[in-house]
């Protein structure tokens, strides 16, 4: 190749590179100048805590019917779809037998009524959550302000590592588009798309406007919600005065849902 032609081409290439780099530098300069900082203001009525926790008084529930309003309230406001196919099922809060909710804790012979009674299970909003450790994109994270384990449905890539990491089976995956299976869409809360994981969020959106979680509100006092680190809180009072257990405590995840049996 002609050496002068090569030189011209080199110069052209370098100039093109220079031109493309300039706007990038500009962009950096502008950002520094404007100091645009997003601010998130707390709502006036927002409830706050160091670590939200729940106490379930299991003695107050006898049958599935007692739980139905709680589950219904949660699934309705969170646009949880009803899917016929069990493989596609999505649930945030549900019930199971004692030996399923507390595997390893069930004695060979159990009190008859404990054996019969259903137990409420949901995300434990662990203080040391393995799902948060596993997520490769920080789509699931522990909110520092109040300890709720939250999800960013828009960032989730659907790898489902969090589902493998959760020892409580608290997470569901959208195996198909959930929208056609939502009976009545609540416009106050986002619906999800196919291919992302979801779970209970301790009603972070309700706490932000000063309301207690939907299941707690619908439980007629059988569920209590409050700050685990406030010695004067109602949950601490219940934990102090009752014998409580937690699910799979030996795993060290420090679940924030306590059960009075």
């Amino acid at each position, binding site marked *: 190749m002609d050496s002068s032609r090569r030189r011209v081409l080199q110069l052209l290439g370098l100039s093109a590179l220079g031109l493309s780099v300039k706007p990038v530098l500009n962009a950096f300069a502008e950002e520094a100048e404007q100091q645009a900082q997003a601010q998130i203001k707390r709502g006036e009525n927002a409830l706050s805590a160091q670590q939200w926790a729940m106490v379930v008084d299991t003695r107050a529930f006898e049958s599935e019917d007692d739980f139905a309003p709680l589950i219904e309230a949660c699934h309705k406001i969170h646009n949880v779809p009803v899917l016929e196919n*069990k493989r596609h099922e999505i649930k945030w809060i549900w019930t199971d037998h004692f030996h*399923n909710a507390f595997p390893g804790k069930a004695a060979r012979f159990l009190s008859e009524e404990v054996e019969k009674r259903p137990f409420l299970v949901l995300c434990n909003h662990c203080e040391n959550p393995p799902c948060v450790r596993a997520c*490769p994109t920080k789509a699931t994270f522990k909110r520092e302000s109040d300890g709720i384990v939250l999800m960013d449905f828009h960032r989730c890539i659907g790898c*489902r590592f969090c589902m493998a990491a959760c020892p409580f089976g608290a997470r569901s*995956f959208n195996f*198909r588009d959930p929208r056609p299976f939502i009976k009545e869409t609540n416009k106050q809360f986002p619906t999800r798309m196919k291919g992302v994981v979801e779970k209970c969020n301790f009603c972070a959106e309700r706490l932000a406007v000063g309301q207690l979680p939907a299941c707690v509100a619908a439980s007629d006092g059988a569920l209590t919600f409050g700050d685990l680190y406030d010695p004067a809180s109602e949950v601490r009072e219940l934990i102090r005065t009752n014998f409580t257990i937690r699910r799979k405590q030996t795993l060290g995840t420090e679940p924030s849902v306590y059960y009075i049996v």
Partner: protein
Amino acid sequence: MLELAIKGSKRYYGWMTFLLAVIGAGFLVYLWQLDFGLGITGLSRDASWGFYIANFTFLVGVAAGGVMVVLPYYLHDYKAFGKVTILGEFLAIASVIMCITFILVDLGQPMRVFNVFLYPTPNSVLFWDTIVLQGYLLLNIIIGWNVLEAERNNVHYQRWLKPLIYLSIPWAISIHTVTAYLYCGLPGRGFWMTAILAPRFLSSAFASGPALLVLLCLIIRRVSSFDPGREQIQSLAKIVAYAICVNVFFFLCEVFVVFYSQIPEHMDHFKYLFVGLYGKGAYVPWMWASLTLMVIGIILTVNPLTRKNEGVLAVACVLIFLGTWIDKGLGMIAGGFTPNPLHHVNEYIPTLPEIMIALGVWAMGFLVLSALFKIAVGVKEEVRA
């Protein structure tokens, strides 16, 4: 050298067309999955990983197995393997490409995959897995390509490759270690929660990878004028023999710990896989087949009489490859998810669409492998001529 991949016999073109057809079929089913969601698979909220991730895990092993020809040649100066190192490196490239594709087809939102790099999360093992896999792919492409080109030009390969070659050896170990860490660090998954998982993965990798290489060497000898060599094949076979013995030994170590301690959370998964749990046991015949295949593989590869007979050796390698595939590619993932954390047994059975997509990915890997091996063999024939 790429031109060597597109100049071939009718048989070569026929084989590549067949693979393209399988890839095409798999891709069409994948488009369906992309449209509908992962609901077309057998996965559920209990078994949230399945066939894709299991095949991914197995293939990380095959990729790591490639190091078994690289290590003796470069670290121990075992000259005979100089002839076949390129085959190990190219096998690693094809395997890692399959691994990455299996991860991609498993994602619920594949178009968001770059979030992994946009929001790097060092506490996630999956983040590290993407890094080590891509690093291993890059290392093998750079090393394999340059060494082969140097061979073609009858010169010594570039000096700067040497540190990369040395780096690629521990890197091979790392890819399968990190892959094991995906599973063994999860609380509440008793089946995987064992420190021997990574060593077990590696031993099965060093059996399955070289076993496949033996088979590929035998095929190359038949279809080309390049002979990988009897000594080379026998040395590989010895590696397979040791590795499969160690693999079964590690498995028995795990069985002892689980069944002597009698801790239900660890025992129930083994029971589910090998004898069934609560009347459910879809994997029982598979798991026993896997063990049987591996034991026959040991007998045939350890015994010098059978190992030295290349026909019998080929059979042994097929058995070992299948045995380790069932162990890792079927049982390892499904067994870990059953019973689920609430002790329900909801079985995971892969669906036909899922299997077709997986076959498409395998075909893609073999397409890459065939093209790369075609190049390597072409260069070897050229140099010899």
